[in-house]
C-alpha cells in the first residue's frame, strides 16, 4: 500500500452559504488547495504509456480517471489532506488517504465500480481492523461517509 502524509484530524466545513442554484459545481477558486492539486494529478495519469509498470499494464482508462475526478469534486471538503494518487493495474486509478491511525483507499475501475479498503490501527493481522468491498451505487455519498469516519467527525 502506498504512503500518504499523516496529519492531525481536520474539521470538515460544509457550512458555506446556501445557494438557490440547483446544478452542483465545486468552485475551484474557493475549494481547498488539495482539490485542484488532486484533479491535476489524476489528469496527469493520462500521460502514462502502455506498459507503464513494465508488466504490460494498459494505459489508464479515461473512464477510471473521470470517475476519480468526479469523486474528488464531490467530496471536496476543507481540511482533507492531498491523497496519494497512483495508477493501478488494469487501467484503474487509486486514491489513498491516511489520517492518524485510520486509512482509506479507493480504487476506481473502468467498469464504473469503486473498490474500497478501510483500515483502523496499525495491527493489520486483526481482521476487525480491516474492511473492504465494492461500491456500485451512491459512490460519492458513501465515500464522503467513509472520509468523515477517517477524519473522526461525528
Amino acid at each position, binding site marked *: 500500500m502506498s504512503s500518504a502524509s499523516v496529519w492531525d484530524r481536520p474539521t470538515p466545513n460544509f457550512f458555506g452559504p*446556501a445557494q438557490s442554484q440547483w446544478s452542483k*459545481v*465545486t*468552485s*475551484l477558486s*474557493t475549494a481547498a488547495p488539495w482539490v485542484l492539486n488532486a484533479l491535476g494529478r489524476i489528469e496527469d495519469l493520462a500521460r502514462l504509456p502502455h506498459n507503464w509498470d513494465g508488466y504490460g499494464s494498459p494505459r489508464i482508462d479515461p473512464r477510471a480517471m473521470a470517475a476519480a475526478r468526479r469523486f474528488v*469534486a464531490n467530496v471536496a471538503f476543507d481540511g482533507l489532506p492531498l491523497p496519494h494518487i497512483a495508477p493501478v493495474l488494469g487501467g484503474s486509478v487509486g486514491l489513498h488517504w491516511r489520517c492518524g491511525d485510520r486509512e482509506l483507499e479507493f480504487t476506481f475501475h473502468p467498469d464504473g465500480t469503486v473498490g474500497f479498503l478501510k483500515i483502523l490501527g496499525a495491527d493489520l493481522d486483526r481482521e476487525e481492523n480491516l474492511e473492504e468491498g465494492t461500491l456500485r451505487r451512491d459512490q460519492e455519498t458513501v465515500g464522503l461517509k467513509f472520509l468523515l469516519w477517517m477524519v473522526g467527525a461525528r
Partner: protein
Amino acid sequence: MLEKTVAAARTLPDFENPPAVETLMGVHFAPIEKWQSPYFGLFWSRIKKDYPRFEIQPPVVAAPTPAMAVAQFQSGFELPTRCWFFNQDETRLIQVQSNLFLHNWRKVVPANKYLHYDELRPIFEKEWQGFHNFLEDEGLGTPRVQICEVTYVNHIDRGSGWDTFADLSELFPNWSPKTSENYLPSPELVAVNTSYALNSDEGRLQINAQPAVRQIDAKETIQLTVTARCKPSSSSSDEICRCLDEARKWVVLGFTDFTSPKMHKRWGRKL
C-alpha cells in the same frame, strides 16, 4: 403555432445553443410570521401531483452576517428550513422557505430543449398564484414582496472557447491577462465578480465568473452566473411580472454585453 408566435415576439438577443444550464426566477418577501414547518407538507399536498419528490435544504440567507441570520431565524422561533419540490422528470424545481419562492429550470442532459423565459414565466406565474392562494386559504396572510430575481447559470466548458485562464479575454472582452511588467506567469485561476446598478437604482445586476468542476461529470468549466434583482413597487402580480421582465432584460443584455462576439458566434446568435 404558439411556438412560432412566441419566437416572433422575441426582441432580445437570442442564441441557437446558449451555454445556459439553469435559469431561475422568483420572489423574496418579508418573512411570513405564522409560517411553521408543517406548512411545507400542507403546500406539498397541493402540488404533489406535478412535483412528486421533495428535499429539505438549508435556507438561503439574505442577512449580511451569519450572526444576523441566526438572530433573524431565532426571532421567529422557526427552524431554518427550505424545501425543494421536484417535477416528474426533475427538470424543474420549486423552492419554498418562509421568505422566498423560486422556480428553477435546468438542463439535465445536453439533448434537453432549452426552455426560454417566455415559456417559463407563465409556469412561474401559475405556481406563484397557487402558493399565494395557499397562504390566503391557510390564513397566513398576503406576502409582501421585496425583491424579484432572475438568474441564468451558464457553463462554458474548457475546450469550448478557452483552454487556459489566459484565454479568458476571448470570452470576456473586459478581462485581460496583460500585466504591467510581465513578471507574473499565466494565471492559474481567474474569478470575476462585477455588480451594476439598474436603471433608477431599481436593483442590481451581478455577474460572477468562476472556475469550477461540474460534479456530475467532473468537467472543468467557467460558471458564469448572471443575476438581476429588482425592487417591485407593489406585490401585485402585474408588478411582479413587470419586475421579472425587467430583470430578465438586464440578464440577457448584460450577458451579451459581457461576453465576446466570437463566443456569440459559437453559440449561434440569432438576434
